[in-house]
C-alpha cells in the first residue's frame, strides 16, 4: 500500500495489524518514539491531516489516503523549524526523547490557536510527558514561537 508521508509517497508492505508507529520506524523515520505504547506519554505523536494523533494507537491502514507528517518533515538538523530552534535556545529539550512528540503537538496547536494563553498551552501539551525539563521551558518555547509567528 502507499502512504503519503511528509509530502512524499512511500510504498510499504504491511501486516494487517501494523501500527503506524512501527511502520514509520521501519521506514527509518525513527524520530517518532515509542514510549509507553499505551496512549499515555505522547512520544509517538504524529500529525494526520494536520491533527496530532498517537501513532501507537493507530493502525497504519487507517492513515492511508491521508497526509502523515512526522518530526522529520518539520525541520532538519541543518535547517531547524523556528519551533525547534526555540526549544533548543531556551532549553526545552534535555534528553530529547519526548521532544518530537511535543514539537508535533505544539506545531499543530499553534496553527489552530496562533495567540494562546499559557493555560491554553498547558492544556494543549497535557497529553505529552517529559521526565527532564519540568515543562516550564517547553511552555516558554511555545509561547515565544507564537510571538515570533505573530510578528511575521
Amino acid at each position: 500500500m502507499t502512504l503519503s508521508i511528509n509530502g512524499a509517497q512511500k510504498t510499504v508492505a504491511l501486516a494487517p495489524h501494523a501500527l503506524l508507529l512501527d511502520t514509520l520506524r521501519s521506514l527509518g523515520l525513527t524520530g517518532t518514539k515509542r514510549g509507553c505504547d499505551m496512549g499515555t506519554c505522547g512520544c509517538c505523536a504524529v500529525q494526520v491531516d494536520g491533527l496530532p494523533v498517537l501513532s501507537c494507537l493507530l493502525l497504519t491502514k487507517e492513515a492511508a489516503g491521508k497526509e502523515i507528517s512526522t518530526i522529520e518533515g518539520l525541520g532538519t538538523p541543518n535547517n531547524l523549524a523556528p519551533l525547534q530552534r526555540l526549544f533548543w535556545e531556551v532549553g526545552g529539550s534535555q534528553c530529547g526523547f519526548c521532544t518530537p512528540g511535543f514539537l508535533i503537538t505544539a506545531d499543530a496547536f499553534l496553527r489552530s490557536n496562533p495567540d494562546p494563553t499559557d493555560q491554553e498551552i498547558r492544556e494543549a501539551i497535557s497529553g505529552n510527558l517529559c521526565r527532564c525539563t519540568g515543562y516550564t521551558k517547553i511552555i516558554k518555547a511555545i509561547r515565544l514561537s507564537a510571538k515570533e509567528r505573530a510578528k511575521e
Partner: protein
Amino acid sequence: MILPPFLLHRPTTVDEAVDLAALHQEEGVSFLAGGTDLLPNWKNRLNNQPHLISLQSIPSLHDVESGKIGALATLHSLLGFSPLPQGLREAIEVVASPLIRTTATIGGNLLLDTRCHFFNQSPFWRATVGSCLKAEGPVCRVVPGANSCVATFSSDLAPLLMAMDATLSFVGPQGERSLPLRTFYQQDGIRRMVLKPGEILTTISWHDDPTLLTGYAKLRIREAWDFPLLGVGCAMGLCEGYLSNLSLFLGAVDSIPIEVPTESFLGEPLTDEAIEVIAKSAYARVKPMKNVGLTPSYRKRMVPVFVRRLLMRLRGDH
C-alpha cells in the same frame, strides 16, 4: 507491546459491516472505532478476536447534526461543533488527553470496557497474581469468592448523556433498533450492556432543548489522562426558580452509572436544603470498589461534595 495478529476488514457501508460481522461471528469479531480503548486492551491480550472490523471508512457514521451524532464522530470534532450542550462539552474536555481525543469517538466512549487494577495489566502481571474472572482466571480478586465482576464503569460521557436522556440507535443482524441509554448498561462488569452480537451503534441522539442546564464534574488524580474516579452528570430544567426537570447520574462508583432519585423535588425551588438532601441520598447509594485509584471511602465521601458543587453551579451560584 506488540499487537497479536488479526484480520482487518474495512467496510464502507453499515450493511456491509453487519454482514461481515455475521459471517465471522463464530470465529470471533470486534468492531474498531478510534481504537483508544480496544488497542491497549488487545496489546494486553484482553478480549482479542481473529477479526477486526473497522468502522472508520463508513461515511454515514461520522455525520453530526444538532441533537443527533454519528457514533464515529471524534471527541475533538465535537468540541468544534455548535450548538453542543454545555455539559457534554465539559465531559468531553476531561476525557483522556487532547492527543487521544483526536481519534477517540463518542460511540467508543459509551461502549468503553469497564476497568479494574487486576484486569488492565499485561499478561505477565496477570500471570504473577493469578488473573481474574474478567480475564482468564477463576475468581474475582476484588471481592474474593464473588462469581460476578464488579469492575468500574469508566466512561465520562455516559453519566451526562444519561442525565440528558439520550437515545442510542443500532443496526444489527436483526435490523434496526433504538434504546434509551438509561436502559443500556447491565450490572455486570463483564457483560456490561445489552448490546447484541454483531450489532453496531450508529447514532446517539437527544431532545434538543436549549433551556436545559447541563453539567459534568469529574474526580481524578491528574488533570489529564486519568479515567474518572467519580463522575457526576446532571441535567436540570429551572423555570422561574422552580425545578421542571432534574436528572443526576454518578459514574465510576459502580459497574454501571447510578441514578440519584430526584422526582420528589420537581415543582419545588432548588434550595440549599434540597441540595443537601440530594447530596446525602447520592452518598447513600454508592459503594465504590477497591479496583481503581484512590480509596473507596475517599471516593464515597467525595460524592456529596461533587454533587453539591455541581447543583449549586447549575443553579447559578459561583
